[in-house]
């Protein structure tokens, strides 16, 4: 790693000022599991490393009956995966967080870091997409709330500006009769990068009724995490059955734009979307 100056702000305001002063020479350090590898490989060589993990205000999981879930940006994946309220009400997010890396990586890595890396194969974005999450971005000039499906612009590119920090993830309560799941296939071995990740959230109008809404999101099959909107149309407003699931899965696979192992990824997308919908539907009934 090249030499750098280390800054450890204690408050968000302080961090923002530091980032603003550093300009392009500054990098935000949260869990370190991505940044340090990039620095070791000299892919990034920041002059300043701003450690936001030292800001206690950014580490929290709060649930409000009305507003829903609020997660601080530097909350560890393991904390999210173990959180009783998230496992109870937003379990696909817990599943996605428990899939990331290894136990050690989950103890270090943060949800904010995972989102901001914006790698095509991250696990939390598909879950966040179907949960209609929004992220709070703050800078010295104020704050903005950005829906997660507008956050990712390209591989490793987000709408985050230079001196802007993602501080919070906001997830509204899922509708009353709904369930979701996150399923994935890895590249080679069991503990491995995600080859295809699929998140699904289904809402029914009653326990055995019509599907009023379905959200299907996939990771690692396009330049950014994506919603399979055409596939969703196949099921939205209909009564779910095996034939429709198969059709939706087929359509979803067609919407993917994988770069490498493309045929195989399309096949796995189809299989996982089918599995995810079937499993979720079973959960609701």
């Amino acid at each position, binding site marked *: 790693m090249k030499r750098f100056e280390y800054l450890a702000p204690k408050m968000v305001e302080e961090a923002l000022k530091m980032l603003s002063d550093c300009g392009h020479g500054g990098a935000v350090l949260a869990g370190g599991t991505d940044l340090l590898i990039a620095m070791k490989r000299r892919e990034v060589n920041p002059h300043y490393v701003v450690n936001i993990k030292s800001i206690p205000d950014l580490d929290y999981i709060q649930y409000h009956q009305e507003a829903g879930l609020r997660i601080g940006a530097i909350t560890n994946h393991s904390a999210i995966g173990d959180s009783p309220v998230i496992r109870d009400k937003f379990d696909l997010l817990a599943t996605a967080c428990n899939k990331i890396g290894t136990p050690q990586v989950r103890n270090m890595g943060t949800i904010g870091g995972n989102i901001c890396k914006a790698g095509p194969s991250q696990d939390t974005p598909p879950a966040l997409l179907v949960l209609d999450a929004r992220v709070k971005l703050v800078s010295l000039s104020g704050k903005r709330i950005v829906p997660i499906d507008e956050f990712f612009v390209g591989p490793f590119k987000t709408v985050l500006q230079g001196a802007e920090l993602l501080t919070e993830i906001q997830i509204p309560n899922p509708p009353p009769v709904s369930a979701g799941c996150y399923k994935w296939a890895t*590249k080679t*071995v*069991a*503990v*491995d990068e995600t080859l295809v990740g699929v998140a699904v959230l289904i809402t029914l109008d009653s326990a055995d009724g019509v599907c009023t809404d379905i959200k299907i999101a996939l990771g690692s099959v396009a330049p950014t995490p994506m919603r399979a909107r055409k596939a969703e149309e196949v099921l939205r407003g209909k009564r779910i059955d095996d034939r429709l699931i198969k059709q939706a899965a087929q359509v979803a696979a067609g919407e993917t734009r994988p770069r490498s192992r493309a045929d195989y990824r399309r096949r796995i997308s189809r299989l996982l979307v089918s599995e995810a919908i079937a499993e979720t539907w079973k959960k609701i009934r």
Partner: protein
Amino acid sequence: MSQRLSVVGKRIIQPDAAAKATGAALYASDIMVPGTLIGKVVRSPYPHARITRIDKSKAENLSGVEAIITPEDTAQWQKFDRGMKDLPMIAGGYTVPPDEGVLNERARHFGDAIAAVAAINEHIAEEALELIEVEYEELPFIIDPEEAMKPGAPQISGFAKGNIGKHMSYAFPAGDVQKAFKEAECIVEGTFSTPKQEHCTAETAAAVARLDVNGRLTVWSQCQLPHLARREIAHIFNMPVHRVKIITPFIGGSFGQRGALCAEPICVALALKTGRPVKLVYSREENFIALESRTGFQYTLRMGFQKDGTLTAMDTYMLGRLGGYMGCGPMASAIGMIFGLGHYRCPNRSGEADMVMTNTPMSGAFRGFGNPAIMWGIEQLVDEAAEKLGMDPIEIRLKNIKKAGEIANMGLRLESTYLEECIKRGAEAIGWKEKWGKTKKGTIRRGVGVATMTHCSGAAPLYLDHSNAFIKLNEDGTADLVVHPAPVGQHIWGALSQIAAEELGIHAEDINIVTGDTDVTLFEYGSDASRSTYSVGNATLIAALQAKEQLLERAAGMLGVSAQELEINDRQIFSSTEPKKRISMADVCYDAIYNFKGECLNISGKCSWESKWNSPPTGAFFAEVEVNIETGRVRVIRFVTAMDCGKAINPMAVEGQLEGGIQQGIGYGLTEDYVINKDTGVVETDNYDSYKMPGMMDMPETQVIIIDEPDPKGPFGAKGVGEPGMVGVAPAIANAVYDAVKVRIRDLPITPEKLLNALELARN
């Protein structure tokens, strides 16, 4: 031959286990010597390039940099073969010309060493690397062995005409293969390919070198062959052997990779240049690109059978990819052919191999050394023949496996074999009868497969199988055993303690292993070819026997009986005819040392051992797999290894070898793919994010069965077991996949895409 054993055969705790469990055990990368500088290496980003200019001035001016060496600096030293095959360690005069310099002006592969730095800490050394300016003239390069052999291909080494580093012929040809194939009633053949497989030792290559005031060089080296390393290093640096001292620390895994010199040459060069101790620790990336990994092959194989399943003919042509320098790679084909063609009874056998140099990182020895590659094909063809002939794969194997007394793979008598029992017990354990050959339906299909193999205990008569052991008895009846196998994790110290203690009638914990210093230990070829327990064990046994003879003679005198009637058990020497006449080991040893009667003696024994035999271990491997025909994923759900490795000196240690072999075999078979970019020659899989070995969640339910019948030539009947554990894993998986979904993959590793393609082809 039944033996009443008190120590051998027990699951004793290893003498070094506690040190490893507490973190106290020191590995080369842990060694701290005052004043140590840290070394780093500049490596070629091109697969083939001439260095036209090196400007080290900026780097030299960096505060904290003590020295920078380039090929100009290292030209004063001798060229060498890092596999040390420029030394006469192989019978029949096989040597490899010394072709590699400590640093090289012409880079022959991506990652070849160009220059090196020694600085006061790692960070400054890294910074210095960036400041060294190197200009390269890129040269045409060759990645593919077939292309390398074509006329007009860039020549990589002056010693390899047409880039053929070595042409190897099968060492034990027999009969008339052409005729036999003409007469064969069933012929099976195929082309198979096996990849480079990286050892992924937990500890990366590392060395520490220190030049002492009196001109002696001490090197902490991970080399599996310490005395050979001593000689090779002395030779490279123009020193007499006695000026070099090799210290062997704990080694964090080897599996054959440390059978070659790794970080030592550059580390020593930096130490000599600076006059200060230097530590050189390779990064994981350097392990992937700068060291030898498993030799990859593409080969054709042909086998001929009679209608009743009798094997009559075998022939192979193997094309192996060596890399930019020769190293240990060429022997992989020789060994592969010897073990593969010599496994079953077959009266007509032939084989040829071309080992080809290419502009890629080197190839060498990795657990099994050519045997895993060739058995990948052989065991699949045997299954194909069985199917053609309407036989069960077990049946056809039982028909052709050798019996004790026949000529074994290395041309010596097969001293013992219990392969039949391995096959039968393993088949029962996996549930062969219930599971094999059933009609499979559905998306998820299960199958079982078998593979068998023979390996070696040591490499006599091919390699120099020379070990020495010296044992001395202390005044309290404990003993010091001076030996020098390499402690790579195979539990050799425990095994040797058990062997010595058994012979001497004392306890394993009464033995102190004196090792790891070439100043003190006698010549030892080293740990290689599954030989440590067998060969160093035999040397230990005979040394202990000698000491015992001296001991009993003295005891006889003290007891007033004849030595012949004396026995030792549990540290007590007693007359077998009059057990009341007894004396403790301690008393006899004490008397020998603290003796004022002119009879002083430090009771001891010494043995220079050269194996005249080779007792090949045999084994049967059974895989149960689950194949998802939609995703193409293969999951190994159960694995059974049944091994005949003679008497297990320590069954716990033997199990460990077999269980570890399963992990490496699953990697070889399913998950590990070493990828070199064909257009740039760059190694794309250079760390664990891109190169995947099986983790805890990838392992099947395992069962290992140790037959535990003693071999007449091994120490207390032991045979080698370091390597065999991985040899049959991949082909057993391939055969199980065939049983599940009726397609064959001949190209390792088996990947989902390959499987889906094969299923698609089978449907059309």
